């Protein structure tokens, strides 16, 4: 069963001439790891904001976990977790206070003004989660005094507190060091395996999408390709996903420069009529 259903989604920001998202459609199955990739300004954050009910859509239909994002927005919010692209911990509180506010807003525990007074289950969960991502020592420090990467890790902890059904990650590893990135993905893999969480990821570290079930490429607000990563690598004859991705973007730019349409999206489970040429980087603007 599809846990995310998007049909002809369009978003035109107020006073914008062009829509930022142009009739996008896709589905994400329960438990799937879905990577939503595209260059800066492609429309990834716009799409995620609409899916998480924080931005209104212009037209189209979106259902999350079977609920309509407009008429049943509350139920949708109940099923999702999100790490926003722009860091947004409350800098005037400590990391733990941020997590406590979050957990209480999600109805997990009754609010208590002191950490000691919170239920043991809460304290245990926060401390374990913070230890897992390696920020256990900083739990009681004001957020304003933490490094950017540490703040990001606490956002990860916060987003997982309520065990969301669908987890939206908008560039979650932005600003993390290599080891932290590695550990975080190890952990997210475990979350997925054990909780069956559906993960919707955007990232500019393309290697993070290697393990995805589906890779969806969006460019200028349109979906160009939606298929398993193996399929995408095969189409572009690339050894890894990043090469295939870069090749795709270069070709796409080339077509655009020639005034031709962008790469058409082949249906997910059918091979394209004509597989693109194999050599990476060749298509950079030079194709006729």
């Amino acid at each position, binding site marked *: 069963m599809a846990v995310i259903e998007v049909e002809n989604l369009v978003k035109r920001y107020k006073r914008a001439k062009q829509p930022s998202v142009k009739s996008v459609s896709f589905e994400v199955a329960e438990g799937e790891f879905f990577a939503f990739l595209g260059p800066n300004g492609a429309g990834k954050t716009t799409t995620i904001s609409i899916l998480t009910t924080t931005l209104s859509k212009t037209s189209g239909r979106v259902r999350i976990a079977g609920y309509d994002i407009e008429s049943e927005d509350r139920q949708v919010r109940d099923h999702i977790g999100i790490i926003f692209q722009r860091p947004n911990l409350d800098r005037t509180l400590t990391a733990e206070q941020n997590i406590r506010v979050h957990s209480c807003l999600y109805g997990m525990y009754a609010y208590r003004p002191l950490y000691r007074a919170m239920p043991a289950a809460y304290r245990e969960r926060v401390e374990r989660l913070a230890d897992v991502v390696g920020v256990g020592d900083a739990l009681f420090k004001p957020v304003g005094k933490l490094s950017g990467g540490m703040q990001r890790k606490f956002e990860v902890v916060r987003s997982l507190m309520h*065990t969301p059904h669908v987890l939206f990650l908008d560039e979650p590893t932005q600003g993390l060091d290599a080891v932290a990135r590695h550990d975080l993905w190890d952990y997210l893999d475990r979350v997925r395996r054990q909780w069956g969480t559906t993960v919707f990821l955007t990232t500019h570290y393309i290697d993070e999408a290697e393990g995805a079930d589906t890779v969806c490429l969006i460019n200028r607000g349109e979906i160009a390709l939606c298929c398993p990563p193996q399929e995408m690598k095969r189409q572009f004859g690339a050894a890894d996903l990043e090469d295939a991705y870069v090749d795709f973007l270069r070709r796409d730019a080339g077509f655009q420069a020639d005034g031709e349409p962008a790469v058409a999206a082949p249906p997910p489970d059918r091979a394209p009529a004509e597989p693109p040429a194999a050599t990476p980087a060749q298509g950079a603007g030079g194709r006729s």
Partner: protein
Amino acid sequence: MSPALVQGPDGLAGGLARLVPARRLSRAAREVNAVVTVAARDITITLGSPSGLVMGLAMPLLMMGMIGGMLRENMAGGLGFDFGQFMLVGMVVNMLFMMTTMGMVTLVDDSDDNYSAELLVAPVSRYSIVVGKIVGSSFLAVVSCLGVLVVGLAMGITLALWQLLVLLALAPLMCLSGGALSMIIMGAIKNKKTANMAVMMLTFPQMFLSGVIIPISQSSGLLWLLSRLMPMTYCVDLGRAVVWAGQPDYDAVVQFDPAVNLACIAALTALCLVVGTFLYARSEKNR
């Protein structure tokens, strides 16, 4: 199977998603909890900022001590009632109302820091968020109100204990009313400077229009109309009605029937809350 037997990714009970007891509170309890949580966050922030607290205490000194003191010395004769008490009750209500209105501007900070996204993505009613914010803002309002009483005491103006208690019993209503009023501004203005200005432009004239310090029983024309549109007018009058209850100079001090006051406060508060919350939620979402 006991959930404790299953290890989750965090090493805690609940390895399989559905075994994790993610929601423990009932729907109604969650909304109340959300109000408490949002309010507690604001109070924690207020307590963490000594300069804000000092401002909260300095406000009554400035308004009551200076403006009120001057007026009392220069114009209080021949009013037919105790001007000191008149002003004290007005100031108590004004502080509760106005400081809550002003505190709501932090909603714009939340917008700037992107924190409002975290609040608005939570599975709770928008009203819970707004009411929580109002309760949180009223904390500093109560501090200022205590400041008024202290300044009053220093000026030799006091209230009987029962008068003080009934006033304090009405305080939540006055704070709610003040907070709701500012939601109209918060729904329309996203810029912090502009929002602050707008709140100032609302609260200062209101202090005079609603008769906090200067009696308005003789107002006419536009001023009369404006005074009747201000929710604080009814709050101030209600405050005086309970304090002057049963006293011979009641009619010289109180303008409206307390039931009229209550009805007007309830209607204006509900209107501002519903319209303001709608505008606010929409402005955050419709970009």
